[in-house]
């Protein structure tokens, strides 16, 4: 066996655990789900090939469009709000203040709380009768809304919940902010730049790849939003106002026994995320600065 062959064999041996995992737990399920999306498959019986039937049915399915609309509404508000708020927090936590480690821990903590626990907590805090939020609003003379019962407010409650757990995004920003060379700020100061000018002309361009990364992760996370609404609003109550795409996908698969339909929804979600990610990459080309390029 030649040296190159031995090298190749060792290489395959080293990557074999990953290859086995990838083929068995990722490639096969992904390809199988593509096949199932063209079938009627209840899980309990063998799939029957129905061609594009699932996709045609989805196009005429009011609940599908409604869940997509709810998800889009949530994403449109949540992603920009989350990007701005967590960046602001990260900037504050990047200043030189005594006890910073404590503040950073406090602001990061909510993201360590499991989603289900957060959801249950929000159910209590935002309860319109006994919740802390409405009790506080009442104390200042405001009649609080039905955060969990009024369809006009329920999505906003979920947005607040998402923002509350934004610690991970904030930490990534913080890491990005700490990578900005001090020399650039010093140069800007010599040129007479003020705080806002330094932020606009030094900080934001230097962390632009981090912003892009957080935006893409935000898009993926928002479109896949599932756990909190699933726990807080069973079946998307009230009046399907919180019925998100991933919840309908789950229900189709495991409650309505329509795994083929759910697979079709899964592939539409994949394409949607892919298109939005590519669009973000394309549109940001001129605005993102990569130090190494």
């Amino acid at each position, binding site marked *: 066996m030649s040296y190159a062959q031995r090298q190749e064999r060792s290489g395959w041996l080293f990557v074999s655990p990953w290859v086995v995992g990838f083929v068995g737990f990722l490639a096969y399920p992904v390809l199988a789900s593509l096949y199932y999306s063209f079938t009627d498959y209840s899980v309990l019986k063998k799939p029957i090939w129905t061609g594009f039937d699932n996709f045609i049915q989805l196009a005429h399915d009011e609940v599908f469009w409604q869940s997509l609309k709810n998800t889009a509404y949530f994403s449109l508000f949540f992603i920009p709000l989350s990007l701005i708020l967590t960046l602001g927090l990260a900037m504050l936590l990047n200043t030189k203040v005594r006890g910073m480690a404590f503040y950073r821990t406090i602001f990061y903590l909510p993201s360590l709380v499991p989603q289900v626990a957060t959801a249950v907590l929000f159910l209590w805090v935002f309860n319109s009768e006994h919740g802390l939020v409405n009790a506080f609003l009442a104390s200042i003379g405001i009649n609080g809304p039905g955060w969990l*019962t009024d369809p006009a407010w329920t999505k906003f409650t979920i947005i607040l919940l998402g923002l509350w757990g934004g610690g991970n995004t904030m930490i990534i920003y913080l890491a990005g902010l700490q990578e900005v060379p001090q020399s650039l700020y010093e140069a800007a100061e010599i040129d007479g730049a003020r705080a806002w000018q330094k932020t606009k002309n030094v900080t934001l361009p230097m962390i632009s790849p981090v912003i892009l990364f957080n935006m893409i992760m935000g898009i993926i996370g928002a479109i896949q939003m599932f756990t909190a609404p699933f726990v807080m609003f069973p079946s998307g109550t009230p*009046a399907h106002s919180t019925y998100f795409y991933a919840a309908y996908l789950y229900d189709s698969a495991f409650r309505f026994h329509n795994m083929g339909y759910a697979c079709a929804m899964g592939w539409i979600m994949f394409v949607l995320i892919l298109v939005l990610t590519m669009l973000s990459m394309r549109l940001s080309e001129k605005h993102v600065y990569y130090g190494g390029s």
Partner: protein
Amino acid sequence: MRVRLSSKVMKPIASSILGTLFVAVTVALAVVAEMITIPPDYGNVTHVTYWEKWTGFESDAMKTVVDRYNSTEGKKKHIFVEFLPVGDIEAKVLIATSGEMPPDIAGLDTLDVAAFADNNALMPLDNYCNQYGIKASDYIPTTWSMMYYRNHVFALPTTPDSNALHYNRAEFRAAGLDPNKPPTTFDELDAVSEKLTKKDANGKYVQFGFIPADPGWWNWGWGYFFGGTLWDGKDKITCNSPENIRAWEWVASYSKKYGATAMAAFKSGFAFGSSSDGFISGKEAMQLQGVWMYNFIQQFNPKLDWAAAPFPHPADRPDLAEMTFADSDNLVIPAGAKHPEEAFDFIAFLQKQPNMELLCMGQRKGSPLAKVSDWFLNNHPNPYIRLFSDLPKLKSARTPPMMGIFNEYNDALGEAFDEVCLLQKTPKEALDGVHDRIQQVLDHYLRITKLRQAAGG
């Protein structure tokens, strides 16, 4: 002395160590997988696995019956039933059955029996029933009707339930009403409800007489109280029939009278089966509830002065008087179960009157059997057990529709019900919308079922 090994020597050693490790781990995983998937050898005892959804005292009651079986009949016949409470049981039975490793017995809701049976995921029990002499006349007819689907017996009951109007006698007295005269018609219910609804000095509700959306488990079924049905039993969705629209107009009348958002906000403070429950806390003077409510009242507010009575009916439909929703928890044998005969032996054991009464007494519910002993009725802790046992025997009793698509139908009705309660849509608009959507779902379902039959699947 330090020995330095060259990379020429190290590389083959490292790769052989890694290779051996990889093979060893793979073999170990395979052995563990074998141990998990192949049941252990119990000698000449057949091991029957039984998955059930219950926890707490309901689970304990079934465990008592399982223990009784294991120490008597099971011991004689060399059968051991292993009882395992499982959360989210429908999804787990679904996955286990599709993976050809189902439990031998599973406890499913009535709503799931039809869906599982339509998918050939349940074993028909007709032959076993004949063998053990189990027949329709042994049961309350409404209970039996939930076991029998598409000309086959697919399930046998564990504990049945029925519902009735629960009302707060103390609040009746406080409002100047006779606590021994609960409302019998919807008109009376509305009038009494108005008298029992109170506001504080700021105009905020502090008590409601009745809230149609609470607890919300039978939102799909209000039409039945007015003589409606949800489908024709074959291929037509009937949720927008005049009876159903009338029922939902009655529901909407509460939102119009008391304010949709105020009522929804008030109800949001409730948590069923706790001290914050609307009825248990005294904030809701009347509620449609099941036989189980007694247990929670005892646990969280034993001093509550309450009573149960048949739910009211429309004044112009005396034929619907004393209607109840009869439902049941059931045992099924999933298709592909390893020990169906032994599994049925346990199920048949449970169907004997003393064992069934032991279970139903333990769970503090009624019995599904046509014959009930005096001991059961006289010693039952629920003071209204005779009412809950008798209501399902009446002609007016209704059961949930046995439809393979009912979960989806129920969700659609739930959404429409919310829209009506919030006055976003009129009952007709909402129910027409559900009709159009679910009729399509049903048409598709029936088409696929035919396709499957043609394909022999």
